[in-house]
């Protein structure tokens, strides 16, 4: 059976995830990920002609509450967990650069 994923694919995904993998680890994860992808092939091989799509076995619908103010978490206690705070807000590193 052809490998469903190549070592190069795994190296590419590792680069995207900022993971430095040794050659042995690349081999190991290629074969493990191939095992997971074979599960997808097992499901794909099923004949589901005429089977209704099921997102969940229970008839769930969105649950909404009345739009009324209710007590929420203590702001100072929540902000105390942030590495950096500016007034009443979380302060995070800049993610969008300014035009040069």
């Amino acid at each position, binding site marked *: 059976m052809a490998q469903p994923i190549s070592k190069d694919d795994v190296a590419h995904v590792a680069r995207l995830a900022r993971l430095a993998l040794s050659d042995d680890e690349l081999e190991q994860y290629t074969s493990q990920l191939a095992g997971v992808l074979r*599960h997808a092939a097992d499901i794909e091989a099923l004949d589901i002609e005429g089977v209704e799509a099921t997102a969940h076995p229970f008839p769930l619908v969105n649950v909404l509450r009345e739009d009324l103010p209710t007590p929420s978490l203590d702001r100072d206690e929540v902000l105390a967990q942030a590495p950096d705070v500016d007034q009443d807000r979380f302060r995070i590193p800049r993610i969008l650069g300014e035009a040069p």
Partner: protein
Amino acid sequence: MSGPVHAIAADVRSGRRSAAEVLEEHLGRIGEREESVHAFNLVTADAARQRAGQIDRAVAAGGDPGPLAGVPVALKDLICTRGVPTTCSSRILEGWVPPYDATVVSRLAGAGAVFVGKANMDEFAMGSSTEHSAFGPTRNPHDLSRVPGGSSGGSAAAVAAGFVAASLGSDTGGSIRQPAALCGVVGVKPTYGLVSRYGLVAFASSLDQIGPFATTVADAALVLDAIAGHDPRDSTSLPGKRPAAGSRLGRGAEGLRVGVIAELAGAEGISADVAARVSEAAEALASAGAKVEEVSVPSVVYGLSAYYMMAPAEASSNLARYDGVR
């Protein structure tokens, strides 16, 4: 109806024993064996002593602290506890202290439980052995050379070692049931929606459930009844009232119909020992009066493959938040 949870609660409520005495007995066992078992990421002995003192004062004042009065309990370390670190056995969350309690935590507290600590687990609940914790593995208290199962291995080991009378774990694809089996204790994955997940760090939301570990079925039922019930803060929580698990105990197996799935008998990957124990359990149920019959569930063999599609996809969505923005 029996077990250490029932016995402790009855003794503490009636004043026969103090919650403090019960707690010290359990802390003593932790002191003796925790270094080799490593069931906990954190033991909150001081907070537990304060809490036990409160319960004893309530009893002395004529009050009733609840159905779990003075019962020492461990919580899997992905259940949020206000003011107590919650790590998911990962360094990603190191230093984070939740600003709120999970619903199961407030319910157990309201029932009189005493929290002893946060139990070790596979990192973010991904694993089946509790070897994959950033803080080191948990060992099986029955044989330290063996794994306790996982991912709720710390919760199962803490009960099996007698460190606590009961604990909570979470189960996505076996993470309560399998470690309970490996540690020789009772573990329940409740019906989806029965127990609120508010304050549970999510793995795969269409499968995750919180459930109890204990040494007897009656004890597990008592803990389950304390945490079950609708919670408006979990939108998948089932509305309405359901019969208490405890009310269904003691009826025996007479009149039960039990199906043994034909496709799983001798299936690939099942050890001969496990298959033999399953047969013995079916025979025991039959001789206790249950009607045991073989049933065919042809789609069951696709269960694992379907799980490997759904669980990692949902985990990928749920855990992306820990990856930051880049």
